[in-house]
């Protein structure tokens, strides 16, 4: 679709320019780059360090309740956690996700984190997103390295729905960031057609190959989004996203998926998880974040509908939080947290990963849920499932995965 559009645009540009532009339209190899076995990978980075013990509370563990007199979620009664499996429950405000759990589309991984504790948001996010824990000078990100092994001119193969490109998408493979889908357009007012044609022709004739290719990508993407009116595509009938940035961003990602634009990777984020004080249990600050998260994810799943089988969503964070609640009824920066994986091929309805009773002797530095599972292990499995044959030694250099978690069928 976009190939045809871009050719048309290009021909218009060539016709208009009146000079022979030294430009050979390169064949888009999207068809090759997205074999039928591929799934679109969507990452939702929860920034601030999610309290995994409130997201997926081990409600049957007595040590959990001892460590958290006011913050622990109950196993039964009012505001109780929703029963998952083993000792685990799901935060009650995540109820909209229960149908995905019951249908086997949602898996939980607990005790996951960086192999060496890093308790600075900045550094921990950097290490998760670069995919090279402990190595700060890695210039690119894990998601980009997963794509950059193959050349592709598909303009919308990697999109971040956030104002700036996240670290995970830094790198050689063309990735673009947009705060909202509707912002990705030329603001040329009345002279929109002329400006678009003019720029398209200027970039088609650019001497610099990188600028020429990028320009082509940009105008392909612009025309594709424009002619499909994707930014204004309404959600599937009956689906309503919750208010707030995450709902809007996931709605935009759903538009790209439904518009079949060749999306391979989408990344977005949600803040507000740094709950040092007054975190709350079944209600309160943390619970409100859960409401937004679950509402947006659930709406997304219903919005893409049957296409969910071709999509995998990973919800991750930079670290978990202290097992004991602090003096301000909050929790501080910890190590291991929980991760959610949902979508096609996921063997859901199960809690994965090693997890033990939270007695102080089992904790990292006597205070934190350890990273029993290296964060790269599930990400590697997700990548292998979404992009069969992906070179994991390139994506996570120096990482040797242990036995498979078995997240995927």
């Amino acid at each position, binding site marked *: 679709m976009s190939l045809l559009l871009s050719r048309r645009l290009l021909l218009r*540009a060539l016709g*208009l*320019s*009146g*000079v022979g*532009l030294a430009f050979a339209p390169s064949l888009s190899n999207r068809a090759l780059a997205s074999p039928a076995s591929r799934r679109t990978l969507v990452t939702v980075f929860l920034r601030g360090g999610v309290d995994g013990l409130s997201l997926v509370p081990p409600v049957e563990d007595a040590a959990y309740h001892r460590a958290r007199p006011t913050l622990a979620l109950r196993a039964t009664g009012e505001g109780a956690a929703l029963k998952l499996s083993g000792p685990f429950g799901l935060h009650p405000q995540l109820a909209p996700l229960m149908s995905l759990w019951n249908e086997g589309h949602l898996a939980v991984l607990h005790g996951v984190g960086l192999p060496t504790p890093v*308790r*600075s*948001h*900045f*550094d921990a996010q*950097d290490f998760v997103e*670069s995919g090279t824990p402990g190595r*700060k*000078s890695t*210039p690119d990100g894990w998601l980009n390295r997963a794509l950059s092994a193959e050349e592709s001119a598909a*303009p919308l193969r990697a999109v971040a729905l956030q*104002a*700036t*490109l996240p670290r995970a998408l*830094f*790198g050689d493979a*063309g990735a*673009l*960031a*947009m*705060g909202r889908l509707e912002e*990705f*357009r*030329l*603001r*040329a*007012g009345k*002279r929109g*057609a*002329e*400006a678009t*044609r*003019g*720029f398209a*022709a*200027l*970039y088609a*004739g*650019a*001497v*610099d190959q*990188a*600028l020429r290719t*990028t*320009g082509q*990508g*940009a105008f392909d*993407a*612009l025309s594709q989004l424009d002619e499909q009116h994707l930014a204004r595509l309404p959600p599937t009938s009956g689906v309503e996203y919750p208010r707030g940035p995450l709902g809007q961003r996931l709605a935009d990602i759903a538009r790209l998926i439904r518009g079949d634009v060749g999306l391979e990777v989408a990344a977005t984020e949600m803040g507000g998880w*740094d709950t*040092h004080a007054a975190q709350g249990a079944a209600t309160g600050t943390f619970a409100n974040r859960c409401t937004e998260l679950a509402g947006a994810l659930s709406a997304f799943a219903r919005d893409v509908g049957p296409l969910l089988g071709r999509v995998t969503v990973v919800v991750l964070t930079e670290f978990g939080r202290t097992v004991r609640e*602090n003096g301000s009824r909050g929790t*501080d*920066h910890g190590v291991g947290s929980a991760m959610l994986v949902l979508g096609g091929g996921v063997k859901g309805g199960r809690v994965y990963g090693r997890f033990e009773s939270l007695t102080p002797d089992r904790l990292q530095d006597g205070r934190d849920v350890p990273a029993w599972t290296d964060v790269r292990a599930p990400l590697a499995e997700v990548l292998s499932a979404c992009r069969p044959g992906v070179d994991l030694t390139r994506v996570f250099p120096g990482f040797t995965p242990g036995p498979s978690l078995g997240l995927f069928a």
Partner: protein
Amino acid sequence: MRLLSLCSLAVVLLSCASTPHPVVRSEAPPDQGPGAEVHLLQRWAFGPSERDLAEVRRLGVRGWVEERLARKDAPVSAALEAKLQEFPTLTMSMTQLASDYPGKKEREQALLDGRELMRPVRIGLELSAAKVLRAVEGPNPLEEVLVDFWFNHFNVSADKGAVRWMVTSYERDAIRPHVFGRFRDLLEATARHPAMLFYLDNWRSTRDGMPKLGQRLTRRGVAPMMMEDDGDGDDEDPAESEPKPGLNENYARELLELHTLGVDGGYSQQDVREVARSFTGWSIRRPRREPEFVFRRRAHDMEAKQVLGQVIPARGGEADGEKVLDLLARHPATARHLATKLARRFVSDTPPPALVDRLAKVFLSSDGDLPTMYRALIDSPEFWAPEARGAKVKTPFEFVVSALRATGAQVEVRPRLVQALARMGEPLYRAPAPTGFPEVAAPWVNSGALVARLNFSLDLVSGRVPGARVSLASLATPSTPTAEAWVDTLGRALLGTTPSEETRATVLAALSKRTEAASAEGEPSPVDVQLVAGLLLGSPEFQRQ
């Protein structure tokens, strides 16, 4: 030297033969080829402005460079001074900033006491605004280019905890005073600055086996040495205040890999460790309350070290770190690494090896004298070679500043302008990794960022960039107001040279479509000057320097 000018002459002859444009006679020495002034300003001044172009023409390339290297030029203009006065944080100390622009908790507490305090985000906005203003209209754009280069080389990010209160001082007190000095001094200034000590965690690095500092010390009135209130709840965990002694290698690793030797500089993991041991005790008194350098004798590893084969004897104390800096600042690998980085920034993404070799030698023979390095670059035939002209893609900052300079915009920087840069991928003072922002084109050239650049171009010429006013008519008015004449005059004004045949034809074609539409309605069509200017600023030619 004679050989050098012969090479240069050959370069000129070649470039004259290959250029399609008529050779413009200028006062530039003949070995620099046509368009020398524009090329010089593209790389060393964020692009030509009317004022600086006139200055280079008056003084000649070398005269202009020497005057700026000597910082002998005019002081900050009254207009710029007045604008900078509006940013009180620029001259404040780190302590003042931390107390007057505190984190959320302190602000809420102050509100209860009836005082309204400023948010720390203001610090970054004012610093960014000042950076744009100084680059656009400051008296010494060459200095601003170098401050940008060296800050990026020794990058710290305001996004990491307490660095937000330190970054203003870091640029003002550690980077800027040394960009025309010796590398060794610049290196030490960064090594001792709280921003670097905090950013790369050296302030909390202690000798291995150091006992935990308990409450006892705190009660005696000695500040806990680690992780006091080092954050805003935004990054570092304020509750993580128990000292966790131990060696931290972050600074040591980046010092070797990024600041001095380079990743292939021939050091081992053992060297990283030994360097880290040498810097134990280089710390911050209290990151939030008293952000100043302190040497903590108790935390320092007093044993002997061996760095790159050199023994640093036991009991050296604070001087161990200085010895390491001495060693690194004069190391051939450092010379090569810095030569490569400078050549990459100022000549091309893939700098000619011969140039890197020569620069590395200059670095060693001048004992790291930075102006000598800059002169060697500007005097090199590689800098003036035709293949170096327009060979660099502008970073977002270079693009925005060069557009403001080329259009002679009246600028009062507003947050929107700073945010526009973030959308193009360059959030000022918040580069996400110690490597700083990329010096090469590839990471900047992506579709999203490109659309942001095109929109900035269109917004700027139609007066939609808040805080930037452009008058196209005063920039260039052709004698006959035809489309062709407008494209040529605006092209010369904005691109610094007559636009290429392709660019010219394409812009004219875009215009003619509009003209056809207008004439179909039987009206004479005035030239859409804004469209011409917008297309030129957004053109591939303007993305390069």
